[in-house]
């Protein structure tokens, strides 16, 4: 029994240390010396990069805050034809990685692209007469990222609005607050924690983004890190810049946590009723439908349609073996990442359930912060120890021979697992929260070991949520770009890497092939997730009705 406890503890510490290794290696590199590349960069471009990153993040935050909040409000407070469809459809842009949107829109709006061509030929406007020249600018990047990331805000705000009881608005009405002001003066202040959480996610994704800004020619920190690593070959300098970005991310996270703690007090009084939706007819309903369909059209339908068109035009690339190899590679990586995160995430969720506080809990929470850290930064953090290990292995153990870790996909799998652990862990924790502790005690009384408890009792009870988590992690692993780009062994391309590579070379036709494969996978997974959520909601309702 004691041995079992010891093993569990040791395993916890070991896994935490392992998962915290990337962060530790980056923070350590801040103390090392690098070549002069960072200095050179600091003198020439770093200032511009900082300003650009700041402006980009700010713009995307504003865009997604407005779009996400408004759509969430419309979908919760009004009733119009197609509302149920839009409630789910507004999440669709999440299925498309932002660099695919960037790919499509830069091509469409380029001077030789379809839009400007149409304006020139059919409308007779000269070049530059319609106010913009190209979408490849900061404004264009803000537009694309905002369109791709607003669903985070939408989702969290929608949840928040749904939890706001009717009584609040009834009281407001009696106090003379007009319906028009309900969003601004009641719902929004109440929903602040959700808004901040959503915006924190958007901020972290914007800082982390690499593919979009590269394709659109916007030079942010992630581009700088990549330039230092690939262009100037200075891994330590890249690590240092990554470290600076990491500190910024920590600051954002800390800010978000502290505001959430302050606003924790609950505002519902036990009994909650859904407020009545305002029913819309006629012109108003039509406007609402148009307004709700725009984000879906621009963020999902149009890009997929354009990709389909390019894909159908492009005959040669479909007969190539490369995209299919990339498909296989994407699936392998995603499967491995799901396995690792499922095992570790489930284990951590189980441990967190058993021990509420203490060092272990703190470490496990820290280790699951990977989602906040940019993929580029994680990649650098994984690469440095991996190369060091390989050198040590070659020198002291194997005495010659090839590179062990750097030549394999372990780096990519680890980096992705680190980034997506939180997804799985959250699902595990939330699901286990519904399992009464009494069940654990009973099982232990009957002589079950920890392992038996974990796999024989808990796992079957939360299998739906684990499956849901697995789908989410799978989809994210397929879409992942920067870490895969940096850590993959030679000749190992995933769909994301192929699409990005070809797109940044302007080969849109060829790029559409891996892009379409990617989108098909993520949309399929989105449908699976949607039905899984519906299933778990109905089972939860059934359980409540029974209780």
């Amino acid at each position, binding site marked *: 029994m004691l041995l079992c406890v010891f093993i569990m503890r040791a395993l916890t510490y070991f896994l935490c240390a392992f998962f915290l290794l990337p962060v530790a290696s980056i923070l350590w590199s801040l103390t090392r010396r690098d070549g002069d590349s960072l200095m050179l960069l600091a003198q020439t471009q770093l200032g511009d990069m900082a300003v650009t990153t700041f402006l980009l993040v700010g713009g995307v935050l504003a865009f997604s805050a407005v779009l996400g909040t408004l759509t969430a409000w419309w979908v919760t407070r009004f009733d119009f034809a197609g509302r149920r469809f839009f409630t789910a459809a507004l999440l669709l842009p999440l299925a498309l990685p932002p660099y695919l949107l960037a790919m499509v829109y830069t091509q469409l709006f380029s001077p030789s692209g379809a839009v400007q061509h149409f304006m020139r030929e059919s409308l007779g406007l000269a070049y530059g007469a319609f106010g913009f020249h190209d979408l490849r600018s900061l404004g264009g990047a803000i537009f694309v990222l905002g369109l791709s990331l607003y669903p985070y805000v939408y989702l969290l705000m929608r949840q928040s609005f749904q939890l706001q009881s009717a009584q609040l608005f009834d009281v407001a009405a009696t106090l003379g607050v007009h319906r028009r002001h309900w969003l601004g003066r009641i719902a929004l202040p109440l929903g602040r924690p959700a808004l901040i959480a959503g915006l924190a996610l958007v901020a972290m994704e914007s800082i982390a983004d690499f593919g979009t800004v590269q394709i659109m020619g916007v030079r942010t920190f992630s581009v700088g890190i990549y330039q230092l690593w690939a262009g100037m070959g200075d891994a330590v300098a890249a690590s240092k810049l990554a470290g600076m970005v990491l500190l910024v991310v920590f600051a954002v996270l800390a800010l978000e946590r502290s505001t959430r703690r302050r606003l924790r007090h609950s505002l519902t009084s036990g009994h909650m009723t859904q407020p009545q939706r305002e029913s819309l007819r006629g012109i108003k309903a039509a406007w609402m439908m148009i307004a709700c369909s725009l984000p879906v059209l621009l963020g999902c339908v149009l890009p997929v349609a354009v990709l389909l068109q390019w894909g159908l035009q492009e005959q040669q690339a479909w007969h190539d073996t490369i995209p299919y190899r990339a498909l296989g590679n994407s699936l392998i990586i995603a499967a491995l990442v799901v396995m690792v995160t499922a095992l570790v995430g489930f284990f951590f969720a189980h441990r967190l359930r058993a021990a509420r506080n203490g060092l272990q809990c703190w470490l496990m929470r820290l280790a699951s912060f990977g989602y906040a850290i940019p993929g580029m930064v994680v990649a650098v953090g994984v690469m440095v120890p991996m190369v060091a290990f390989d050198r040590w292995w070659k020198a002291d153990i194997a005495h010659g021979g*090839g590179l062990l870790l750097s030549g394999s996909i372990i780096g990519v799998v680890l980096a992705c697992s680190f980034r997506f652990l939180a997804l799985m862990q959250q699902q595990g924790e939330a699901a286990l929260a519904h399992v009464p502790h009494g069940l654990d005690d009973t099982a232990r009384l009957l002589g079950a070991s920890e392992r038996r408890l974990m796999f024989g009792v808990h796992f079957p009870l939360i299998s739906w949520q684990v499956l849901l988590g697995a789908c989410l992690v799978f989809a994210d692993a397929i879409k992942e770009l920067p870490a895969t780009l940096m850590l993959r*062994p*030679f*000749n190992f391309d995933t769909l994301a890497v192929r699409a990005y590579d070809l797109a940044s070379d302007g080969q849109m*036709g060829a790029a559409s092939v891996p892009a379409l494969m990617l989108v098909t996978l993520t949309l399929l997974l989105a449908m699976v997730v949607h039905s899984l959520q519906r299933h778990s909601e109905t089972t939860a309702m059934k359980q409540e009705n029974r209780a």
Partner: protein
Amino acid sequence: MKRFIFTLLVLLGALAFAVPGFAAEEKSINVYSSQKEYLARPMFEAFTKQTAIKVNLLSGKNDELLARMEQEGEDSPADLLMVADVANLVKADEKDLLQPISSDILNERVPEYLRSEQGTWYGLAMHARAIFYVKGKVDPSHIKTYDDLTKPEWKGRVLARSSLHTYNQSLLGSIIAHKGEEKALAWAKGVAANLARPAQGDDWENLLDAASGAGDVVLSNTYYYGVISNATDDPRKPELAKKLGVIFPNQDSTGAHVNVRGGGVAKYAKHAKEAQQLLEFLASDEGQKLFGQLNYQYPVVPGVKPEEFVATHLGDFKPDTMPLERVGELNAKAAAIFAQTDWK
């Protein structure tokens, strides 16, 4: 349960390690190439047919390949490195990634100014950095040299890619080699003042944009013109390409600045002999033809006819015979000079 987990972990480990490492087989060489796979494969397949030596092709961007080889050091599986632009070849040389070889075939067929003095790298396909103009808007007789781009009549009409790219840096390098740093700085400033928009995009994007009205004159490598004229993914590209004409600068003086795509045998190559064989094949008549075919580049070997589109639409020109090695060595200086201008 235990057995299940155990097998799972074993599978995991096996899978992760088993994936594409490098099997150094008999009769096969590993080539690190920055050329697109579908462009490089036909040449290598022809080589395999002739010699029965298999080619394992690894594609990547120029600087990524160099950084990778540096990191791998002695363990690098690369036998042959093939990159674009002499600056990258010289960089590879300076980083000690290549080994000198002595090949009579290569020394005979590749002109001296297109290969390194030590025999560490050889240029195998050539292109010029030419000036393209929009027909009807520009009188080609008004631009005869690179210097003409700085004339005030071209203000707001020139399109060029970023000065951070090696193609522009090599052009500036050749100007430094011919005329010195001061004149080079003046030239760069002059062109920057005439740009229609901040330097951006790829050469072929600037070509298409010019044809769409964004500018009148474009600095671009010749092969991009071939690529867009024969593009199949978008019918608009060949249409727009037809609106452009080509000017080879400096024909009455030093000749148009040229650059190469080439390669060298890796320093720690395990199959150096076979790698040399591949280089010699690429310098043969058949190799030169294949190299130029999908690429719209000129052959380096004098006497070999260029590809059909290149011959008819671009034609012959007088190249600048300044040794390219010198141009490559001036890369850092060129970058430093560009940093002093508004050419971003």
